[in-house]
């Protein structure tokens, strides 16, 4: 991975993924940066985007122009409040549903008293809204086919206009989500709980990024369940979405079967796009599976993962503790193995193919599949 800052006339996309979480850092040219989602860097313990920018000497306060949270799950929002606090000049956008009354009641109730040591996506989002309120900065609301950002980077390159358009969630997704949240609001005398990891990704903000002639599809965690008006069916079928084909795809929902929809590959992507995924591991489950890898490798030879497949058993535990775990047949693994990244660069005029650089933890999907088999 290149630790030199990109040239003014280079577009750089760095996708971070430590095994549970993801963050996309975009240099749109002329020192204007965009961040989509956030995860923590395993080395510094700080937001991965911030650590990287600091390592290449870029000041996030002046350079980051826009921050998007695709959804509020723990693996997409880790460290986002800290990141946003450092981005003093950035606009902020999230799904329109997260600013609705029903969800805010739910959010405030979840954060009304700290019962647990564990922070969650809900507590991170609460910190973000508190920060925005302190700054008197209202967020932008992402909804299908709504333009979120337009940067006219430099007068010398008229064709380098950067645009970010939300492709989801659809009206139907928002309506359904708010109904579901209403049912989760606790009643008096019900027992308090720690919000389990939400399983639905209905609200994910998939987005279309264009920088001059370069077209990029950011799939977030949007899934496809074969229901009209929702998921990828709604995105692909929208007559008002950007109609170009992307040469780079941040694959949806960690490359899983539920994030896959054939028409995305045939109608929204180039024939052999560069495709990048962030793996995901939680409670014994792991994405992508071997089958997912084979499916993706059948669609493009240029597929990459930001991190290795299997979390390692926790090291550095006291020997008696390790013995107890072993004797009890208890498996404890790191949920966040070392952060890896896939970095892609090309010239802002699109005259060169994407140049791919992998960090030590990242690998091609072919190697990822081999690692699963081992």
């Amino acid at each position, binding site marked *: 991975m290149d630790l030199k800052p990109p040239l003014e006339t280079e577009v750089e996309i760095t996708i971070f993924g430590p095994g549970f979480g993801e963050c996309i850092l975009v240099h749109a040219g002329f020192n204007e940066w965009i961040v989509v989602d956030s995860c923590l860097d395993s080395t510094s313990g700080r937001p991965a985007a911030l650590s990287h920018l600091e390592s290449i000497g870029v000041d996030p306060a002046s350079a980051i122009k826009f921050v998007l949270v695709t959804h509020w799950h*723990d693996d997409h929002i880790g460290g986002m409040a800290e990141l946003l606090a450092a981005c003093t000049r950035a606009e902020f956008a999230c799904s329109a549903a997260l600013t609705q009354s029903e969800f805010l009641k739910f959010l*405030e109730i979840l954060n009304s008293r700290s019962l647990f040591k*564990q922070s969650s996506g809900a507590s991170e989002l609460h910190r973000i809204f508190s920060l925005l309120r302190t700054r008197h900065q209202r967020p932008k609301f992402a909804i299908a086919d709504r333009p979120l950002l337009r940067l006219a980077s430099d007068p010398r390159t008229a064709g380098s206009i950067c645009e970010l358009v939300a492709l989801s969630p659809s009206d139907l997704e928002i309506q359904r989500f708010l109904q579901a949240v209403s049912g989760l609001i606790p009643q008096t005398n019900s027992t308090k709980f720690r919000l389990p990891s939400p399983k639905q990704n209905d609200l994910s903000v998939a987005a279309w990024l264009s920088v001059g002639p370069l077209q990029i599809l950011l799939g977030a965690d949007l899934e496809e369940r074969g229901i009209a008006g929702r998921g990828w069916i709604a995105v692909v079928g929208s007559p008002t979405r950007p109609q170009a084909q992307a040469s780079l795809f941040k694959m949806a929902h960690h490359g899983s079967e539920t994030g896959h929809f054939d028409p995305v590959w045939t109608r929204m992507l180039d024939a052999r796009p560069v495709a990048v995924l962030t793996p995901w591991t939680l409670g*014994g489950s792991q994405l992508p599976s071997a089958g997912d890898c084979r499916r993706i490798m059948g669609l493009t030879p240029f597929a990459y993962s930001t991190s290795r497949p299997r979390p390692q058993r926790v090291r550095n535990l006291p020997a008696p503790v390790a013995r107890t775990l072993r004797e009890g047949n208890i498996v404890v*693994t790191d949920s966040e193995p070392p952060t890896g990244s896939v970095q892609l660069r090309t010239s802002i005029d699109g005259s060169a193919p994407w140049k791919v650089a992998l960090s030590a933890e990242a690998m091609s999907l072919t190697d990822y599949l081999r690692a699963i088999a081992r």
Partner: protein
Amino acid sequence: MNKPLRNLDLTTSAPLDRDVVLSDASANLEFRESSSVLKDLVTAQMDRFAKQRKAERIAISTNVTQGVRFDTLSSTVEIPPTPVLGMATLTRPQATFSPLQEWEGYVVSLTDTHVLANLVDLTSEATRPGQQAEIPREEFSDADIEKLSEGSVFRWAIGYQRLPGGTKTRVSQIIVRDLPKWIASELDEAKQRAAVLFKFLNRGE
């Protein structure tokens, strides 16, 4: 024939957000915890004392201050009568537990054989789940297994228990927390805060 045991009702109150100190002066043991988990600790401690039937004196001290809301914590335990020897009270050494590793866990999912959980390493004072665990169900007590569901929270400690005779045993102890219930005023206050936040986010007020 066993002597009849007398009952000790132990009841204390503390604000939900205050630390409470539970101490056994005779054994020089002390726990400091938030009152929302004190009940678990009291119960576990009393059970241990009752089983050993060596408890002479149990002192509960709290840093109770005036608070708006209180949880009532109650535990009943049978302890043997205190033998009186002249003017002195005989005290005996108690078992001690030295944790080597402590986690807070929350349950992600349950299978027929295992509990899958995210863990926060309390030993390193982490606040985010940095580990995941697949724990066989038999590691939990029967009572705790009944309570488990997605979102359940537990404390897990692995360490050495030292018995009065000098025996040292490596133990793993998991206690599922009995979480308090929502009260109307908490929910009302949260809804009021949500209304304020809604006005800001949607109208800029």
